[in-house]
């Protein structure tokens, strides 16, 4: 440690840059975030518990987590397919398609929200067919899930694509030369290598989806206990000046988000070890 410090100490600005980093981080992120925990700590356990376990809160958690989970699964399948096609095949217009995959990242969530609501509502381009088949696709669980599918897609594609690109061609050739058919090569060589990236992509999409607000509320319906997502419930509590109630719901969501973040970091750590060994 000391040796490295000395070795690198010829460059100036260490104290200034680190000092400023810690100062700005504390000012913008750490102090504001800590108020959330401070606020809930003044509530007392009973109040906190009743705020986060009221039927309305539990219903919103259930909705947010379930819709996010299903959207994540859909993106897992189709994200993998798209990543595979982009990483392995060439076709005309591929560069444009590749850039468009990031469109849900780049499009502001409010725009996504009104667009999806218009697309999937009863008179919308897609909605009119779905409604005609007896599938109401807006202002209900399906609508929420569709919006979460939209915003989650790039996470899976962008985590899996580089892994598929970097996968050693020799491994696949070896499997083929040992008599594996294409399906066996996929199941025994390609898929296990892509699995950590798939889980990471799914977790990132899931984590983003449970906190998502703008792209969902326009298509959600927002009925308390039925189609009210957890982030919307926070806003409702704020509008009723129930700051503590809002903070309590937020703390639970934040803890889940941080646990998911820790999980992806852990996965990456495991994954990098495995690469390091091979």
């Amino acid at each position, binding site marked *: 440690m000391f040796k490295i410090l000395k070795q690198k100490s010829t460059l100036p*600005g260490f104290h200034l840059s680190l000092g400023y980093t810690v100062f700005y981080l504390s000012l*913008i992120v750490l102090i504001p975030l800590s108020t959330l925990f401070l606020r809930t700590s003044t509530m007392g356990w009973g109040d906190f518990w009743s705020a986060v376990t009221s039927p309305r809160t539990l219903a919103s958690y259930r909705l947010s987590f379930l819709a996010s989970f299903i959207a994540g699964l859909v993106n897992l399948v189709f994200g993998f*397919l798209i990543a595979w096609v982009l990483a392995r095949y060439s076709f005309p217009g591929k560069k444009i398609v590749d850039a468009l995959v990031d469109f849900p990242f780049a499009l502001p969530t409010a725009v996504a929200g009104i667009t999806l609501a218009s697309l999937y509502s009863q008179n919308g381009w897609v909605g009119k067919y779905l409604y005609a088949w007896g599938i109401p696709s807006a202002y209900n669980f399906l609508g929420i899930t569709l919006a979460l599918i939209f915003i989650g*897609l790039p996470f899976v594609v962008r985590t899996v694509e580089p892994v598929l690109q970097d996968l050693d061609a020799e491994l696949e050739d070896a499997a083929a030369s040992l008599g594996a058919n294409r399906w066996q090569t996929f199941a025994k060589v390609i898929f296990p290598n892509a699995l950590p990236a798939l889980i990471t992509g799914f977790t990132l999409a899931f*984590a983003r989806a449970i906190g998502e607000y*703008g792209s969902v509320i326009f298509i959600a319906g927002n009925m308390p206990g039925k189609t009210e997502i957890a*982030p919307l419930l926070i806003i409702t509590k704020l509008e009723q000046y129930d700051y503590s109630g809002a903070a309590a719901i*937020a703390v639970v969501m934040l803890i889940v988000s941080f646990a998911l973040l820790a999980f992806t970091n852990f996965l990456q750590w495991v994954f990098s070890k495995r690469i390091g060994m091979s």
Partner: protein
Amino acid sequence: MTRGENPLIRRLLIAAALAYLALFIFLPLLTVFMNAFSKGIVVYLKALNDPVGLAAVRLTVITALIAVPLNLIFGIAASWAIAKFNFPGKNLLITLIDLPLSVSPVISGLIFILLFGAQGIFGPWFIQHGIRIIFAVPAIILATIFVTFPMVARELIPVMKAQGSEEEEAAMTLGASGFQTFWRVTLPNIKWGLLYGVILSNARAMGEFGAVSVVSGHIRGQTNTLPLHIEILYNEYNFTAAFAAASLLAMLALVTLVLKSIVEFKYRAELKAAVRTDGSL
């Protein structure tokens, strides 16, 4: 060729992927513009030429012009400290910097209400002194800074790490000052990564909705950013105007994607060039 699928399966997979993207990405993109122009270009232009809408555009631009440079300065400082020096707690610092990305937009707004709201920790003091933060422009800017906080830093850290310190050390040995070294040696080496981070932060800063919605108070012509303005128009069933305003942000998204693709190419080259000369990473 032992690898690869037979052409039929290959074509089927490409077709399936493209169909999915057409349904979930291209169709929404088309919807924005079709709805915006559904009553003709005259109505479209009239909808855009509205003083309240223009005020929203102005506030959006001002917010980005403050938030992005502040996070840029932070990003440079953080990546310099993290990439060029070793110190205990570095990994923790990197994790903490990334934290805002995993916080829900609504919570990102909520924390500033808990700080500066009427019932908040510092709120009463500011209200006594006649300084409005919540339901005013300062909170909008603060919330935007929070949600875009790590976006420059997380692009710069890998580039600076990959570059190593040898070039800077050489410059210092040859008598350059710290500032000269940064300006003439470091900055040219990281410029594409820096631009990449700025483009991404700007898109997010101009498009942020959830966090800003919580702290803005939705005062027309005063505390409405463009995304909030879109929400109000939409909720008033003024769909053409809502989509006209939305088309501006959709165009911003498309420009962002084009710039991003161009810069990404240079940025990857920058990372690779660094790996070649340094050997680390």
